[in-house]
């Protein structure tokens, strides 16, 4: 009897798919039926259906298979190979992001009394932070849910690989705890403090408003919690991040902790092979990432500069001291780079120097040419608003996630993330991290390059017998996992000779 109820693989997969879709439809339905949108049971049913459906589907998908690489049919499937289904999902996701960022009222958001999808999440929001839901709460909840359920799928897929399992548990933990529960609960226990970001891992510059005047003011007037967040934020930027990046590369953040990375590595995993590996796109990446770096530094320095002028009582130092401090800090970094890299001043080091030079020039220009209400002849408010729009919304959301099925899962991380840019700069120049190539064993098959979500042509290095030290590498470890000949290993070791290029791959006595 028990045997007859047990689902076979195909039935189980289809049932899972059906349940998941039903859950999604319930979410959609809440937009149209106001009484349903007010039903707690409706919300619970929807979230449970989505979770159970996805996990059942994943379990059936990998059930009974022998642990190993599961990439059969990736390029033969419409969803993962930019087919009709891929385009459909891409367009649907993009529409959701456009609604979320620019037309939240279509989701039911209303600052007085929300309806629809936003109201649908009220029970969960009230339970966690004591207030009705906003569109951002809805987004945060669905985002976290996606990471958790697709995290389970990813772990089932890579169950033979402990690096992948532990890394995925880590991103699931940081998303659920640090990004979602802790900030909500802190808001619950401190209902009267003004808003400031409480996700401790979401550091500047990924949190682009950390140094904005309103945010600094809110933290400073936020009691002990506010001061804690301010100082831990500063500690993350100046101590934790440089030390961890030196020891382990930027992967400690990008593929172990970061929320954007978490979504890319879990829900985005079926799309990792869609990133472009062309040299021309690598060039574009270099230009964009350095421009983003200059832009984020200049705008941040500008907002702090204007904050210092308009709030002399809240700060213990003046604009002049600040500018001098920044210039000294950046010149020191340039000096360090020059000192360690003067014998191997490659393109990357040179680009970094030019970038830093631009930032220093910009800082001095701010001091020289800015007035009370404008920065470099632009209203300071406009400057930060543009940045928030360009980076926060258009890039990370619409293009970053909406285009997963078209451009791959790490578009934002690769071309637009200022945090990844800073960590990458350090990873390339001063870190113990590298991907080691195992002597002459590479057969140029191309699996590593194809499945690199950051679009690194890993094979180009491996087939020369050279280690891979690239600023964009997030250390996800998939190149190593899919290598059929055991050629690649992520590891930390002495900084010297990380990038040595042998005349020939190991094996020939020439």
């Amino acid at each position: 009897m028990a045997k007859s109820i047990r689902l076979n693989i195909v039935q189980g997969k289809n049932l899972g798919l059906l349940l998941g879709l039903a859950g999604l439809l319930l979410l959609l339905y809440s937009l149209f039926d106001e009484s349903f949108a007010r039903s707690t049971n409706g919300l619970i049913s929807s979230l449970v259906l989505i979770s159970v459906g996805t996990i059942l589907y994943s379990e059936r998908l990998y059930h009974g298979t022998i642990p190993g690489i599961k990439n059969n049919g990736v390029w033969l499937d419409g969803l993962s190979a930019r087919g009709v289904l891929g385009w459909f999902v891409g367009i649907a996701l993009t529409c959701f992001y456009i609604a979320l960022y620019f037309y939240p009222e279509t989701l039911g958001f209303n600052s007085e009394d929300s309806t629809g999808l936003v109201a649908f999440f009220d029970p969960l929001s009230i339970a966690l932070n004591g207030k009705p839901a906003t569109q951002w709460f809805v987004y945060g909840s669905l985002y976290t849910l996606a990471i958790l359920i697709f995290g389970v799928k990813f772990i089932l897929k890579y169950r033979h690989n402990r690096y992948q399992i532990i890394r995925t548990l880590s991103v699931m933990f940081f998303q659920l705890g640090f990004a979602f529960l802790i900030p909500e609960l802190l808001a619950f226990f401190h209902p009267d403090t003004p808003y400031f970001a409480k996700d401790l891992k979401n550091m500047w510059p990924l949190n682009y408003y950390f140094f904005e005047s309103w945010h600094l003011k809110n933290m400073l007037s936020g009691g002990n919690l506010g001061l804690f967040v301010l100082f831990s934020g500063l500690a993350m930027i100046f101590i934790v991040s440089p030390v961890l990046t030196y020891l382990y590369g930027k992967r400690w953040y990008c593929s172990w902790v970061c929320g954007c990375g978490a979504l890319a590595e879990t829900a985005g995993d079926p799309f990792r092979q869609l990133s472009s590996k062309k040299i021309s796109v690598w060039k574009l990446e270099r230009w964009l990432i350095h421009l983003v770096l200059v832009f984020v530094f200049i705008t941040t320095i500008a907002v702090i500069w204007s904050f210092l002028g308009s709030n002399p009582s809240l700060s213990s130092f003046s604009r002049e001291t600040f500018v001098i401090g920044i210039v000294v800090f950046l010149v020191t970094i340039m000096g360090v780079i020059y000192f360690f890299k003067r014998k191997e001043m490659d393109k990357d080091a040179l680009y970094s120097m030019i970038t830093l030079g631009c930032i220093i020039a910009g800082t001095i220009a701010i001091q020289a040419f800015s007035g009370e209400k404008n920065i470099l002849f632009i209203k300071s408010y406009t400057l930060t608003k543009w940045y928030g729009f360009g980076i926060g919304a258009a890039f990370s959301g619409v293009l970053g996630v909406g285009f997963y099925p078209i451009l791959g899962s790490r578009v934002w991380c690769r071309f637009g993330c200022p945090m990844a840019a800073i960590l990458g700069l350090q990873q390339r120049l001063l870190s113990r991290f590298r991907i080691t190539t195992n002597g002459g064993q590479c057969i140029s098959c191309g699996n590593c390059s194809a499945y690199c979500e950051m679009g690194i042509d890993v094979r180009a290095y491996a087939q020369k017998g050279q280690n891979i030290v690239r600023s964009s590498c997030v250390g996800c470890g998939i190149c190593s996992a899919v290598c059929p000949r055991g050629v690649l290993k992520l590891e930390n070791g002495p900084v010297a000779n990380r990038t040595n290029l042998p005349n020939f791959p190991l094996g020939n006595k020439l």
Partner: protein
Amino acid sequence: MTSQSPIIIIGNGIAGTTLARNIRKNSRHPILVISKESDYFFSRTALMYVYMGHLKWENLEPYEKGFWQQNNIDLLKAEVTQIKPQEKIIVLANGQHLSYSSLVLATGSTPNKFGWKGQDLEGVQGLYTKQDLEKLTANAPNIKQAVVVGGGLIGIELAEMLHSRGIRVTFLVREDSFWNKVISPHEGDMIEKHILAHGIDLKMSTNLVEIIANEKGQANAVITDQEESLPCQMVGLTAGVRPNIDFLKNSDLEMNRGILVDQHLATNLPDIYAIGDCAELRAPLPHRNAIEAVWYVGRMMGETLAQSLTGNLSPYTPGHWFNSAKFFDIEYQTYGQISPLATQKENHFCWKHPEKNCMVRLAYHPKSRLFLGINTFGIRMRHEVFDQWLNDQTSIETVMENLSQVNFDPEFYTQYEPQIIAEWQNQFV
């Protein structure tokens, strides 16, 4: 004639392409690479991944299309039908004559056929070329059952490929132990069990007798020497490869199984060389074969000949033997010399994980205790360290003591070295 005759390389595989790239590093001499198979160099070892949907064809090409022009390497897709060494020209299938300053034959291999009845029927094929892949892909929707004949590396790959598309595969292996020219029966046994676990119908000690056709002339069954008839719509012939040299039969080139070359990879004819799978060394190195149809050997011959052709005459002196493969999910690496069976001059130590597909076997000299070589399955190991140990003539004891140094598995993987060392001490100390 103002323009210089190019160095012509026939074959754009790993040997020919490595040669072209390395000549260009040292010289501006014109280079022409001719292939009848593909427009651009691709990784032959990865053909399987395109069929399985892991990769697209573009992923197989290690260099972007602009690379060749940037490096001033001319490519030509054409078939060479004849060489005329006296006039220093080659003849293409369209009748065109091309003159060369040096000619390098890097024509690779072609699948063996042993005169089986029905071996040329529709639906019967090997898996070696781009065209083989295209044929198989076109044929795939019609295949429900397939028989793969031949227990080598291509055979197991073809079985895995067909299986990945839901085709029922019967795998006929002549030997009683898988790949027994290279690995031990103990290792072969582990691979056989793994093949069976994937749902492949593996038949050891079984030979192909005849392939039967249907009324349309398509393969539709295989008869084995176990007097079984296996219905199938596709037969994969993967009983090894041989040098692809048939078009040279009427030339003055000295050939045996392959094109005979000296230590500088030169043939008996002036300015003609052969590298890669098609070359047969007149004086192979100790413990090495005269023909080694392996990716790495093709690459090293290309590197070596490039030196000779750019003024730095260099003999072919490969370092210590190494190789790798993957049997479904089991990765295999080997370093140094290790025979399938222990001999008087070669003792073996073997460890296998009680359940997992992890296994190592080390060879050492019984008297001198010198470490000779290793096979490792399911545990990745460092090429560099083994190469150094082999250079330094390290003893088996030193190797065992330092075994954890060679581990190349990803971080957080369970390390089995303590178990391996404990087993070693248990057996011998």
